[in-house]
């Protein structure tokens, strides 16, 4: 017998125990236990509930100790631990009848209670493109040397760009790298409710202790702390404690620290003190890649044509893209084959924003109103700065969103040459890529026009 093999040792113990106690006793107490590990001469026996632990300690300890000592004197002691359900052997159940009711996708939604992380979010499933490359690199660098390289790591970007995915991936990867350290993920809103709860119950100290024990703290959506002075103060103290002890902190927000309104300056300063990266708008290649990868994860193979079509025709966040994909996956499950491009086009109709044909006059009046200028001035031959910019934006929007031809745009906007229009569109396009402020403005305008 191999003494250090838990399985063989347990088998041997069972044969010995069976001789010393009644069969009923043996069946009740020994059937579902096993040796989990042998460490430093201590044998750890895994049992299924506190009942067993008690009973083993009171009644079988001497017997078991005698048996293992007979095997080898190097076994000093026996300890009993209650094994988690997942570690126990499950009987293989063969379901003969095919269940025709579809199952809820529960498997995707397991969240580990002790760290709040969703195991679904990992670096493996994170699609990296030029838009999030920097953020991805920063995240990976931060966990290489946690608490030192980039502390805190502040990731921001518009909704649906994958912030939560990235920061949860940090947590999940960290757990893999350092199994003995403690990770915790939470949203700033949860932090707030936790704090108020602890105040109400008078356990504020426990609250502080709870958060100070973590080696990596990940806080999502910190912009919601805006205007909540008490929470900010609490976070400030927590931050200082973790930071001073070289614990890694990760934040996410939908805007840069400087742009979060109503937040204490000292907290803002701390947000900025580490590494601040943004996740931009995904480019076309990344979108196609995202569509492909997400579809593949649900076990659906889409043709290139279809994935390209989805990526191009669904404007907006990655979340919307996922919504469309889910309907494609559902279609595949119901019909058994992935949809072709005609079917996708059909089903996308419900997702696409209606009324893409809008009169030029309507666009002009809305944008003029947005910039607070006279609608007539757009059509005039003036080159005043405050008019030129809105006019260019109008041209850009008419071209990009409504696909109006260059000559028509020129014609409608006071008889301008089509080359002027081309120049304006190109100019705005260039600036949008560089100027976040302008990009935001255009986003706002788009919502006005829907």
């Amino acid at each position, binding site marked *: 017998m191999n003494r250090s093999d838990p399985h063989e040792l347990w088998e041997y113990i069972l044969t010995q125990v069976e001789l010393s106690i009644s069969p009923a006793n043996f069946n009740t107490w020994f059937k579902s236990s096993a040796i989990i590990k042998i460490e430093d001469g201590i044998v750890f026996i895994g049992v299924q509930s506190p*009942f067993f632990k008690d009973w083993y300690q009171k009644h079988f300890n001497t017997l078991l100790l005698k048996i293992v000592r007979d095997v080898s004197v190097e076994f000093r002691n026996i300890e009993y631990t209650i094994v988690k359900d997942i570690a126990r052997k499950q009987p293989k159940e063969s379901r003969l009848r095919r269940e025709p009711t579809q*199952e*809820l996708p529960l498997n995707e*939604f*397991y*969240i*580990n209670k002790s760290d709040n992380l969703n195991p679904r979010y990992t670096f493996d499933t994170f699609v990296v493109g030029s838009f999030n490359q920097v953020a991805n690199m920063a995240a990976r660098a931060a966990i290489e040397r946690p608490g030192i390289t980039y502390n805190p790591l502040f990731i921001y970007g518009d909704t649906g760009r994958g912030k939560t995915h990235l920061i949860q991936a940090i947590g999940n990867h960290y757990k893999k790298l350092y199994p003995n350290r403690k990770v915790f993920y939470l949203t700033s809103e949860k932090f707030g409710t936790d704090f108020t*709860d602890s105040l109400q119950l008078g356990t504020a100290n426990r609250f502080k202790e709870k958060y100070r024990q973590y080696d990596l703290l990940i806080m999502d959506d910190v912009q919601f702390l805006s205007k909540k002075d008490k929470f900010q103060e609490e976070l400030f103290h927590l931050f200082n404690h973790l930071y001073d002890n070289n614990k890694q902190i990760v934040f996410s927000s939908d805007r840069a620290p400087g742009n979060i309104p109503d937040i204490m300056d000292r907290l803002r300063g701390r947000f900025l003190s580490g590494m601040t990266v943004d996740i931009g708008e995904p480019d076309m290649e990344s979108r196609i890649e995202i569509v492909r990868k997400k579809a593949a994860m649900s076990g659906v193979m889409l043709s290139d044509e279809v994935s390209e079509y989805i990526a191009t025709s669904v404007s907006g966040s990655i979340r919307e893209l996922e919504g469309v994909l889910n309907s494609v996956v559902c279609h595949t499950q119901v019909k058994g084959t992935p949809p072709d491009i005609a079917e996708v086009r059909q089903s996308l109709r419900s997702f696409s924003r209606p009324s893409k044909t809008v009169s030029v006059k309507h666009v002009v009046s809305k944008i003029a109103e947005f910039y607070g200028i006279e609608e007539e001035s757009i059509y005039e031959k003036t080159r005043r700065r405050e008019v030129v910019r809105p006019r260019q934006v109008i041209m850009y929007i008419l071209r990009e969103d409504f696909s109006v031809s260059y000559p028509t745009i020129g014609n409608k906007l006071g008889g301008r040459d089509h080359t002027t229009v081309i120049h304006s569109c190109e100019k705005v396009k260039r600036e949008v890529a560089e100027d976040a402020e302008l990009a935001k403005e255009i986003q706002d305008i788009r919502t006005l026009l829907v």
Partner: protein
Amino acid sequence: MIINIEKKEFSEAVSRVARFAERKSATLPVLAGIAIVAGDDGIKLRATNLETGIDFKVGGTIEQPGVVALPATTLREITGSFSGTGAIKLEHTGDTVLISSSAGRSTLKTLAYEDFPTLPFPDSPTAKFTLPGIQIRTLVLTVAGCASPSTVRPELASVLLSAEGGVVKAVATDSFRLAEKKIAVPGTVAPFSILIPAKNAIDIVQTLPDDDVEVLIDEHQCAFSWPGGIVTTRLVTVPYPDYTQIIPKQFVSEATLLRKDFEASLRRTAIFSDSFQKVRVSFATREKKILFSARNSDVGESSESIPASVTGDPIELSFNHRYLAAPLSLMNSENLSLSAAGIGRPLIIKGVGDNTFLYLVMPMNQ
């Protein structure tokens, strides 16, 4: 051991405690028994099947202290047949117990008490709260039927009990449907979240009194304690799926209808359902009706419609009729709302004006 107990009280106590005794025969014989302990702190009945355990106090007088274990089934049969009032006397001599009342006497063989396990209680509870027993019972019994009967996935064979922000809720799902019941509690309850095996939970809540019960929780077990006794159960320690993400937020079509219409139509249509118990439900937006239809090649087919206020797009979904009928008895509202999130997506059933209960059911493949 010699004790005197009022008939009615003893018979009630035995029927409560017997529930916790082991019903399978392959295990230790004493687990199928009830231990009667007469000591300094009164008379107590104990039983356990190593999953759950109970320690229950009964009133009575002790002439001579002692302990004895008696087979639960036989004891329940005996006490169940008691009639009239009056006291009985239990006298333990050798390996028998003499049960005598004014009318007659019987002797019962005892079980070996030495093998009776001690009931473990949470020594250092990590969480603790007090709730009226009747609320815990409502919570658990409302959802427990939706837990999975198979133990392959222990978390789905369990009832989730959790509290946050002054609301206590119970959830169970077998992955085909899900039920959630919420109760707002006065005062503050510390946030907690535990998974109790559904079978244990049902046994326990039926034993709880209506009054306040203190619940003590540690990592592996949980105890419900009140002045008359204490019940413990093992807890399931695997993570529970974040079910809130599955609940659809947007719906394609919604309908409001009378519960009694729904119930009656469903029952009639279910007669014609096939071997998969399939019933089709259509939201007829224009006709303002909900249509039920079913077809069984051996029996025949049926379809009927009931008036409803329907909004959204017309949609047709198929369900296992048992899953549709299950929530009806769990709701008090006269009116139901059905919200469909689309083909291949869950349907939500709620009582109108009742925000405490939510039932979600997956459709069948078309």
